[in-house]
């Protein structure tokens, strides 16, 4: 056990932690973690916007099924969603799906449901007078929603979106379970190889995740205080 903590295992594998075996092999490590997070964030932003707007529809036939989808996804663990995608996608598409695509699909679906709730709260937070005024000027209900209410709501939603992105970065670690070589998977590989440095390795990757996530958490807080200031004047 001497020396007590020995971080040379980190130094020796540093590029592997950050980019995997790229350029000689597949991209991995931190780079893949960020790729998974950004890709699923973009998809789930669109998905969340659509689901969120459908969930405030005046038509029950649209609103109820949308709410059912949102609440079902929010009611199960992400791990379950990943397993579902793992089994469903190949049989739906009729061909094998790469693990990273499976994870992106699962993360996108899961996060869409959470984004949809943010959108719903944001839209409902805009005073009713805005919709009434828009309708009175002759806009159709969907136009009033998309052109008048949503642009105002989006500004209020921004901090929550950034927070959701932080959750998403943390959630990419679950890609480990289906063998995608993102940061957590890379760490367990190095751990299995070196055997005697789990403390150093997992502390190191926790610190890496922390630096990335804390940056975005701070951005979100700054946005929040700017919004509060804007509202107070």
């Amino acid at each position: 056990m001497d020396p007590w903590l020995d971080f040379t295992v980190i130094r020796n594998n540093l590029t592997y932690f950050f980019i995997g075996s790229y350029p000689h092999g597949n991209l991995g490590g931190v780079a893949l973690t960020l790729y998974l997070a950004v890709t699923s964030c973009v998809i789930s932003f669109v998905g969340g916007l659509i689901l969120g707007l459908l969930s405030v529809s005046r038509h029950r036939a649209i609103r109820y099924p949308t709410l059912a989808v949102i609440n079902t996804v929010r009611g199960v663990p992400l791990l379950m969603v990943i397993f579902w995608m793992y089994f469903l996608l190949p049989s739906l598409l009729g061909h094998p799906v790469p693990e990273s695509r499976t994870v992106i699909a699962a993360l996108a679906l899961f996060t869409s449901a959470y984004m949809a709730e943010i959108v719903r709260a944001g839209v409902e937070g805009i005073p009713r007078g805005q919709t009434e005024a828009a309708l009175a000027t002759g806009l159709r209900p969907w136009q009033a929603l998309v052109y008048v209410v949503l642009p105002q709501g989006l500004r209020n939603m921004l901090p929550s979106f950034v927070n959701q992105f932080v959750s998403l970065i943390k959630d990419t670690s679950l890609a480990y379970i289906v063998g995608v070589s993102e940061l957590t998977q890379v760490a367990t590989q190095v751990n299995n190889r070196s055997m005697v440095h789990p403390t150093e390795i997992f502390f190191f990757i926790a610190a890496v995740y922390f630096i990335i996530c804390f940056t975005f958490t701070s951005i979100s807080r700054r946005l929040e205080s700017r919004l509060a200031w804007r509202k107070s004047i």
Partner: protein
Amino acid sequence: MFHYQFDWGIVTSGKYFEWLLSGLYTTVQLSAVSIVLAFLLGLIIAMMRMSRVLPVRWFAYGYLEFFRNTPLLVQMFFWYFGSYKLLPEAVNDVLAQTNFEFTAAVIALTIYTSAFIAEDIRSGVRSIPKEQMEAARSSGFSYIRAMQYVVLPQAIRITIPPLINQFLNLTKNSSLAMTIGVAELTYQARQVESYTFRGYEAFTAATLVYLALSLFITGLVNLYNKMVLMRMRGE
């Protein structure tokens, strides 16, 4: 689309049903133990975060930010694989006697959730008008007693809905314990799948159970809102 014969009997009775049931039992046990510990720890951290002693406040700030901004899975691996180097030999010996997978999962879930709970409690305390504290102090309570008898009881009442929400998150997060070998619900569903190749049946069963748990916990929030918060507002 599917050429698949469903066989629901496999998960509604017999050996595999019992596996899933024992998984549910472990999930509930894991979540229940962790939520109680996380609440107590979260309360302490929230008090430290509001302390007037700077080093105490900084420690709580670091704790909150660190555990909220790292993935639960990594924390779980850290406690399970890496904690032995940080602990004295004697403690490791004791832990080796217990079901260490379960213990590590409880530690990880407790610490992760406590950071979120502490923030909920803190915003609950901040929502109590500061005149409450001032009135208590001027009638002779010390800071701690004023907190204990006047501010906290009101704050906790407001904090209960977000707390129940954290309990829901915790229940879902407990599925990560499967990665370190705790035989909870997701683990057992996976187990049934690998023994029978009946993935759809096994995961449908587990999904429905999780949904039922979520509905139950959400129902608790609604009930609480109806009974307590409305009475507080005098409706």
